[in-house]
């Protein structure tokens, strides 16, 4: 059983933990764990995006298989990330590969659904106008439809990234690195301070991911459609796997 403490004493222990220089260097130091966590998350989101975005964009552009594109998010939500990670571990063995495979699988659904919705909701009149102005199909897709769909495509990437960062925490269960190490080791060693410090780091990283990708989204959204941001925000798929 983990020792219970008062709110103040827990905070002061965690502050002490963070101010100990020993926790800022070496293979179990915060910088190294941060690099591990960010690296595996970034790789997973990037691979997931390369697979998911073309599918979502193509389905949205042609307006086909809308049910599949929407329901893939429902199936993605139903996947227990813990079970998926452990099965990947049993199939692929130790190392980063099983973590990568599991995280990519969880990253794909929100990106497919959001990019599908973004593309399929482009006003048909706008598409017709683009045709009338002489755009070929590819130019129309790249220069008219995609810019209009940027808010939702980016929202899909952000949703995936935040969930991948959260799920990467569980990778410590199958001998992975990252901030999850502090939480899993804290539980195993009944070291509450380490546990809480790890929780603070994981939560901060998830927030930082959300905020930095929101900022990127704001930069990428074309100026002409920024006014439509509010209704976009509420159509975004909620997604939580860990």
């Amino acid at each position, binding site marked *: 059983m983990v020792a219970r403490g008062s709110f103040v004493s827990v905070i002061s222990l965690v502050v002490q933990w963070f101010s100990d220089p020993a926790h800022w260097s070496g293979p179990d130091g915060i910088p190294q764990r941060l690099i591990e966590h960010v690296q595996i998350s970034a790789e997973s989101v990037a691979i997931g995006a390369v697979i998911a975005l073309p599918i979502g964009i193509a389905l949205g552009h042609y307006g086909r298989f809308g049910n599949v594109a929407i329901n893939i998010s429902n199936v993605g939500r139903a996947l227990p990330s813990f079970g998926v990670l452990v099965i990947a571990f049993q199939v692929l063995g130790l190392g980063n590969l099983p973590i990568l495979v599991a995280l990519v699988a969880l990253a794909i659904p929100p990106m497919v659904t959001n990019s599908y919705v973004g593309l399929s909701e482009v006003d048909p009149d706008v598409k017709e106008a683009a045709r009338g102005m002489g755009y070929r199909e590819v130019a129309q897709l790249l220069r008219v439809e995609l810019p209009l769909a940027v808010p939702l495509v980016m929202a899909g990437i952000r949703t995936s990234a935040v969930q991948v960062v959260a799920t990467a925490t569980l990778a410590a269960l199958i001998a992975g690195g990252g901030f999850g190490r502090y939480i899993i080791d804290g539980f195993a060693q009944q070291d509450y301070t380490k546990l809480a410090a790890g929780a603070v780091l994981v939560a901060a990283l998830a927030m930082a991911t959300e905020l930095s990708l929101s900022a990127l989204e704001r930069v990428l959204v074309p100026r002409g459609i920024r006014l439509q941001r509010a209704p976009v925000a509420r159509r975004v798929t*909620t997604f939580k796997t860990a």
Partner: protein
Amino acid sequence: MPSGLFLDYVDPWVNWTWLSTHIPLFVSAVEQHLTLTVIAVGGGLAISIPLGIAAHRWRSLRNPVLAFFDVVYTIPSLALFALLVPYTGLGVVTAEIGLIGYTVLILVRNLLVGLESVPPDVLDAADGMGYRPLARLFRVELPLALPAIFAGVRIATVTTIGLVTITALIGLGGLGQLIERGLIENFHTPLVVATVLSIALALVADLLLVGAQRLAVPWSRGAAS
């Protein structure tokens, strides 16, 4: 327990003989899984319906409420459980604070979308027919928001069934316990069967909710996003 007694023993993905003698293990895991899910979604509804109505009625509440639960939703569940353990211990209270916190965002957001999408003409007509604000809310606005509310309940339920497995790390887990056992004992059967059951539970619950929605709100088409 099949674990390396013979060097050439290969653990199959599902050992049916073992499974057939351990059915009660899975039944009690499913029971715990469903109990944790029902408390999470029920508790989430009990909080989010009054909160959503209040945020709709007093507009200045809307953004702070959504922002607060957005932050909660962003916190990874394992981190949230770890932060709560020193105060609420290992067990149901810790698990449900996290799980309910996550469902509230989904449910409040959908309730607000539903209430905000009631056409102004309908509200004018209700006012013109002499509805008082409270009667208008219960007899016009909430019924029209039901499809969006149902969509929220579906998403919250499916999400929670997936998240419950993670509570194995704080001593609960439902089917997550069996996933953890598969990991610790390096034994495939409980791992694979529990993962498949968890997915099946989520999909069946989703279908049942679609059915319930067809009965309760026959005019909606059951779309969730």
